[in-house]
């Protein structure tokens, strides 16, 4: 960031930045109007009605109901506009578009660890393509952090034990600040970073240039076997082992022994890894050991991506003889050929 003249606004680098700045302008105008009105009235009355020796005692004034109503209704009206405008911005901000490019962010005390779907890992830096919806799925390994990019006008707390999302659509290339906005300890003010918004071609060059050892899903698969999950959860669809088969379960409701059903999402898979006895699939026993302490947050995200990438069983409906892992996100420019040898991925 070169040292420009004194700034009063952070750059407007995302789609909602304009509407947030518009709301800001409206609010500033209302505040300025009323503050100046009150200040000038006070000065006028203080001067005009200053106590002189001969002024008679001022008469008491009663009534004024209509006056009271007007200066209750007008502020209420102005406030409701503030509420509606703010709520609409918040509503759009809290619903990431379906096709947005997913990036995993893990907050750890005083650093941001970022994992791209293509396997790239970054610390305190986030490279994203311009003009594309980016969805961050964030969690924390210790205390509450907050991923805040002033230039995009977005922030969202990052909580341990939960995934929170934040999404933005960058409109201007450049480098912008990342700040941790929730106090998290000694180096809270050091937990900062930079978002590099790049042209799509540059982004792809950067993406392939990084020494990626396979996509997130492939790393997940490697971890899946390394931790011994594959012994119970066979990747092949046909064998009905002692453990629920993970084929094509992503996004579908899962029947639990208590009769309730839960849709398989990042939260459910993470919970089943870290705390398996919490939700047992119908027809199975509570025999899975817990892996909390044995796997880091990045490992959990890799396993989540792997489970997402296991296609439905070959015979099952909706399965396609996918050469590569069905769920692997075909990031627009990501060269599919780069995927690891097909053998490990073939369902």
């Amino acid at each position, binding site marked *: 960031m070169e040292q420009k003249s004194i700034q009063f*606004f*952070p750059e407007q680098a995302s789609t909602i930045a304009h509407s947030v700045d518009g709301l800001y302008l409206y609010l500033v105008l209302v505040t300025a109007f009323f503050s100046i009105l009150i200040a000038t009235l006070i000065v006028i009355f203080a001067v005009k009605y200053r106590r002189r020796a001969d002024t008679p005692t001022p*008469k008491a004034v009663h009534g004024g109901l*209509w006056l009271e109503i007007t200066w209750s209704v007008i502020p209420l009206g102005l406030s409701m506009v503030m509420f509606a405008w703010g709520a609409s*911005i*918040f509503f759009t901000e809290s619903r990431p578009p379906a096709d947005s490019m997913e990036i995993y962010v893990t907050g750890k005390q005083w650093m941001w660890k970022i994992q791209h779907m293509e396997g790239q890992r970054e610390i305190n830096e986030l490279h994203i393509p311009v003009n594309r919806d980016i969805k961050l799925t964030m969690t924390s390994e210790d205390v509450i952090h907050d991923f805040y990019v002033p230039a995009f006008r977005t922030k969202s707390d990052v909580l341990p034990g939960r995934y929170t999302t934040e999404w933005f659509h960058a409109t201007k290339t450049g480098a912008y600040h990342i700040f941790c906005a929730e106090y998290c300890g000694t180096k809270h003010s050091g937990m900062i970073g930079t978002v590099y918004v790049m042209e799509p071609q540059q982004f792809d060059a950067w993406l392939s240039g990084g020494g990626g050892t396979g996509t997130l899903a492939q790393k997940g698969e490697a971890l899946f076997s390394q931790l011994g999950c594959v012994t119970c959860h066979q990747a092949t669809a046909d064998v009905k082992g002692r453990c629920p088969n993970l084929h094509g379960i992503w996004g579908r409701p899962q029947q639990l022994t208590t009769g309730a059903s839960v849709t398989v999402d990042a939260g459910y898979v993470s919970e089943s890894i870290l705390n398996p006895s919490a939700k047992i699939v119908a027809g199975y026993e509570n025999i899975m050991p817990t892996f909390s302490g044995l796997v880091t947050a990045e490992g959990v995200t890799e396993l989540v991506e792997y489970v997402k990438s296991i296609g439905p069983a070959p015979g099952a409906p909706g399965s396609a003889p996918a050469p590569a892992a069905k769920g692997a996100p075909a990031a627009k420019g990501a060269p599919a050929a780069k995927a690891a040898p097909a053998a490990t991925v073939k369902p």
Partner: protein
Amino acid sequence: METVATAVEREPRTYLNVDHTLKSWLLTEDHKRIGILYLIVITIFFAIGGLFAALIRIELTTPAGDLVESSVYNRLFTGHGIIMVFFFLIPSIPASLGNFLIPLMIGAKDVAFPKLNLLSWYLYVIGGSMALTAIIYGGIDTGWTFYVPFSTGYASGMVMLTLVGIFINGFSSILTGLNFMVTIHRMRAPGMTWFRLPLFIWSLYSTSLIQVLATPVVAVTLLLAALERGLHIGIFDPALGGDPVLFQHLFWFYSHPAVYIMILPAMGVTSEIISTFSKKEPFGYSFIALSSLAIAVFGFIVWGHHLFVSSQSVYAGMVFSILSYLVAIPSAIKVFNWVSTMYKGSVELTTPMLYGIGFIGLFTIGGLTGLFLASMGMDVHLTDTYFVIAHFHYIMVGGAIMGFMGGLHFWWPKITGKLYSETWARLSAIIIFLGFNLTFFPQFILGYMGMPRRYHVYAPEFQVFNVLSSAGASVLGLGYALPLVYFLWSIFFGKKAPANPWGATGLEWQIQSPPLPENFEITPVITEAPYHYAPSEEVVHVG
């Protein structure tokens, strides 16, 4: 306290010279003496909190962390927060001015439970000294909000001692509120109906309502946090399925009404000051009175606007956002009514009036910037930045402390029987007003530029406004030092104060200053409305 022993006979008996032993002060049941005891301890805590603030501002003049290390800086802003919020702002007006004035203003001999009143002071001192010992032994770095899981798992320093100190101090606040409510309900002079009460009493009644209903929840929350930190029973521990956001809900259920505990008494003081120095009955008396109650009641249903970005559900966010706008309306009504009171009044710009006008101006800016933070889309960008710091300092320093200073100056002749020097006082009021604005207005801009709060090291482009803010802080520091000087000077060398130096109409101005130990020789009987300046038949009726 008194100068020559012989002078005692000629002087009338007052609550000050009736007994001089330390025991008579430390075991007093007289609400006036307890008010002074509170005033002394409050001033000490204000000085300590102010010292922390000075160190923070000095550190923030440069982007790099070059005055103190990060861990020390975190303890500085935590100390500043805890001392100012729990040990200065919440007890400041209710416990000192409130204790002194409520019985005087409603024609009672004392508060309902004098022993309980003394116990409250001791609880306040014990809680305060526990927090002070924790700070002397290195302080804690949790921030005054004690967010879990940081405060229970990762924070360092004597966190539990501080939590228990605040827990005990909470009971002082609860018992004071309880005492005031029973006093106002049951000990009013004959003829003093609810709508003949001075507006200061209305605002203190609303404050006590909040103190009684909200403080216990934070007491149990901080107790649970202390237990979780000490005994590792994970109520809020996410690893055990606990919900850190539940802690935030329980914490802010108290802490938002707590900001109304801080501002309502200052509003009451301002109503009294504006009315006295416009020599006119407050415009819309019943609207001001009922809006105090409305603020207290609405204050309980808005706390969620502190949690917009903390993974609170969108629907809950919307509910809290719209309700937060409702709580702004009574404050708007009050401001407009104050200004209308000055209309066609006969305004005298004494020091209390300067503080009163300053309060209205700064509280208006503080309140309106609160509307920024109540709007969800805006709050996403602004929460946890310096915008929030500027907003609540405009309310607390521009509002609550201006009100406290105004009240202190307004009732000083009644409390001590001495007049302070008007010129010095006006000078310090103006210095405070200028210093305050120079300190906190740049922080609004910093906030919108995105500088997060509680940052020891910040990005270089924020430095300009931080230097302005630190410059303002030094002026503000000077402004606050002056009153200490001329108030103390007035106690020993000030002129003797008449019973009613300002020509006010309250009951407290009808008796001698300083008052008798039993306040009134004969209990007064109230026959007409308060603020009775003009003869009642010449009343102008507005549509």
